[in-house]
Each structure stands twice: as C-alpha cells, then as structure tokens.
C-alpha cells in the first residue's frame, strides 16, 4: 500500500493538522510516513498545503508532482492541484470555497459540504475532521481506531475533552461525502 496525498486550503482551515493526524494514524499502523508542510507566512492566512505519504515501503521523495488523492478546500488550491491528481485518482472538494467545480473527467471527484456542516453545528474547528471522515470513507487506508489514537497523540492533553466532538465530526463526514463524477 502506498498513498500519496496533498491537502490544500486556506491557513486556519486545519489543513496541516489533518495531515498530521493522518501521519500519526499511519505511524500507529506501522507504516512509513512523511508529512511535508508548506511553512511560509501562508500559515497565517493565504494558502497552506501539506503532502502526506503513507506507505508499506521506504519513502524516497517527500516532494511529489502527482498525487493519488488531492483534498482541496479553496479555489487557488483547486487551480493549482486539480491537474496533479494521477489519472484514476481521487479529488475531494468542499464546494463552499469554490467559484467553479473541478473539470477533469479522468479522475473520481467527490464533494463534501463540510464548511456548511461545521457552521450548522457551530463547531467551525471540526471542519477538517469532517473532511478527514469523508476521505477515509473513500480511501479506508487507516483504521478509525488508529485515527482516534492519532488524534489523541497530536492534540495537547488540555484539548482531550474535545475528542468525542471530533469523532462525531469524522462520522458525519463519512455520511456527507458524495461522488459527483
């Protein structure tokens, strides 16, 4: 198994954290992992992205030009990464941040109304967990119990009371994601 993922959106949407939780989940499953963030000023607004690789074998380059899956949460990221999904690969978008929908027909495109759901439940910070849930529905590359354990590892202890809300968000994401192409 090898999954090469790019997650991209605005700084503050939890893009880097989502990648971190995936990486921790892979670690707990005994996989090789790499987490390569954009670390520039974009973290504080503007576009941020992270490349995550989970693999059964040693990872050569942590920098890629093509991905199995792209998760895209805003228009600049769609413009930048739609063309980088491998043919037959997966593109997941939250339509809330987009002024146009993806155009490619040789990939599987999924949509998830995560921003809307996070706003509706008044838990804006669970946005990334809703999307993570949706992603794991499509690509069950890590077990949910490892995701929860990974979440626990990446969250400081003072936030551990938020674990149930996050688990609920992951489950919600699994229900919300729908294939549009």
């Amino acid at each position: 198994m090898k999954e090469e993922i790019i997650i991209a959106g605005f700084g503050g949407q939890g893009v880097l954290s989502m990648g971190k939780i995936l990486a921790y989940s892979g670690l707990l499953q005994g996989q090789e992992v790499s987490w390569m963030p954009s670390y520039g000023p974009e973290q504080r607004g503007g576009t941020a992205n992270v490349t995550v690789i989970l693999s059964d074998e040693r990872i050569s380059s942590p920098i890629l030009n093509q991905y199995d899956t792209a998760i895209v949460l805003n228009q600049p990221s769609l413009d930048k990464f739609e063309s980088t999904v491998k043919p037959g690969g997966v593109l997941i978008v939250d339509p809330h941040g987009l002024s146009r929908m993806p155009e490619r027909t040789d990939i599987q495109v999924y949509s998830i109304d995560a921003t809307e759901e996070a706003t509706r439940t008044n838990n804006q910070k669970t946005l990334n967990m809703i999307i993570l849930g949706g992603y794991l529905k499509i690509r069950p590359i890590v077990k949910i119990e490892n995701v929860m354990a990974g979440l626990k590892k990446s969250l400081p202890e003072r936030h551990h009371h938020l674990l149930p809300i996050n688990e609920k968000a992951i489950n919600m994401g699994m229900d919300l994601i729908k294939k549009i192409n």
Partner: protein
Amino acid sequence: MSEEVKLMKGNEAIARAAIRCGCDGYFGYPITPQSEVMETLMEEEPWKTTGMVVLQAESETSSINMVYGGACTGKKVMTSSSSPGVSLMQEGISYIACAELPCVVVNVMRGGPGLGTIQPSQADYFQTVKGGGHGDYKLIALAPSTVQEMADYTVKAFDLAFKYRTPVMLLADGAIGQMMEKVVLPEQRPRATEEEIRANCPWAIVGKPASRGRNVITSLALKSEEMEATNIKLQAKYREIEKNEVIVEMHNCEDADYIIVAFGLCARICQKTMEMAREKGLKVGVLRPITLWPFPTEEIKALANKCKGMLCVEMNAGQMVEDVRLAVNGKVDVQSFGRLGGIIPAPDEVLNALEKLVADNA
C-alpha cells in the same frame, strides 16, 4: 524505551538527539526555519535532567562565541541557525577551527542571498565546504536527508568533532527541518564528568594543576613561522580526515549508464526520478555524498570511468557540481540542474533534465 518510534520534525530530532548524546550546552538565536531546535530544547528543559545548558543569546555572533568559550573547557557545545545567521557566525567558526576546538554548528538552510526567503535551499554549500570564514581551514560537513538522519548525524557530528578537535557542520535545509517522519532516538548517554574531561581533553582549560604547564587556546600567532606551523598541523589533520571519514550512499550505481549526484533532500527527490527513469528503461543511479567535506572524490571518479554522463541536482545555481567536475576531470559530461530562491525541484523536472543529459550524450 529508546526503541520507541516517534513522529517528529527534523528540527525537533536535532534537539532531542543533542540532549540524548550528552550535550553540555546549546547557544542560539531564533531564525526560521530552524527555531524549533531551540523551542524543543526549551520545552524539554534538559537543565533539570541531564544538566545541559540552553541559552538564547542576543545574536548569532554572540552564540558562536559562547560556543567558542564552552568548547575551550572541553564541553560538548553546539549552536544552530539558518543561512543569514550562519553568515554572521563565520568569523567565530574560523577562530574555532584554528584553535582546534570541537563543536557542532547546525545550518538549516534557507534561500538567499541576503535575507532571502524562509523556504528551503542548499545555496550555502560553498560557504560550508570552501571556507565561509577566512583562512585555510575546513569544516567536516554532514548532510542529512531524513528526519532519522537529523538525529543520527547530530550524534555523529559530536563524535567527529571530538575525534579531530574540529568544528563540524550539520548542513540541512528548511524542508528536512520542517517535515515530520518516524524517528528512533539514540540512547541517552551521560554528560562527560569533570574527571572524564580532564582525562580525555588534556588541552582543555579546566584549571592548571601543578603537574603541567598552562594550556593556552588561541588563534593568534604574530610570528609567521608559528602561524605556518599551525597551518601545517591543520592541513595534516585535514588529510587524515579526507582519508578516513568520507561517507557516501549509492543507489543502483552498479549498472547505471547515467548517475545523478545530489545531497540532502535533493538526493531523495532524485531517487524518485531514478524510479521513474528506470520504469522508462533508462539505467540511472543516484550517488549521494553524505559528507560534503571530505568529498567522495574517489567514488565519483570510479563511476566516471563506467558511466556515460552525470547530472548534479541541487537547490542552488550549481555549487557541488564544481566538485563533481573536479572528480570527473573531463571524463564524461557533467550537467547541472537546480532551482533557486527556495523552490524545491520536483521529480519530473529532474527527469526532464536527465533526459536532456541522455539526449546530449546518446
């Protein structure tokens, strides 16, 4: 416990490995993209456990001179910074090299020149291996390419520094500093005791017993004959290091028609390129110098006799390629590919450059 696999950033791995290998003191000044080195040390509070000192100096100039002072006493000391900060340290590094003191300097490179960018770069190759500071000195330079190696080569850097009484540079880049991977940390070694320092570092300034004369540590010798003798001694040591300490990694070089030479992060990107090229039927290998000085001249020379061409890939305008060309000495075509100013080359861009090399030498 030391077997535990952890996920951490490259910068964090440096800090944790430093504590584990019995480092006595860290002196530094924050700069992106390596500030997590000091942040991790401050969070870990090793002064409460191993007794290691962690101090934020008022500048990089000050940090390197604190390192100079600490090293005089036989202590295991280090500093870390990123490119502009390391430029400020060059005077101190030259003094430390001349005074023959052990220390570790970490450079998590960012794009320059000038204040540049905070994105990753390898443009301090020349500064590291060709001097940087003034005078005829050399730095042992280790170039890690994974987070695990950030930890392993921190330990190795200290070992080499003490073996040869010389400053050692750990030359990483912003990407390896910021990325997270799996790491197994080295086992905790105790810090050297005062008695051990007296026994193992007879040159150290630790207080003069009646049994010997004064230890003097200086880089100043106003008589040219003395200064020449110092230089000759340094050069003899450098030849010894060149003979003993070259580390190089080779992937699929045995049957390769074309060799990509790259260090640090670029070497991993080029391995991906190698996989892509091999799928297309091109026999490509990757040679990765781990020590940038001493440089694997002999290994490259040997491959030049068997291959049709070499491509040197760097995140700079072509620096290491000069040393590759010296080693190859005109035997085969050596081309250079690099991205500048903080841009990381992608595996397919490198493949394009490789295909050009192949076309030119078909």
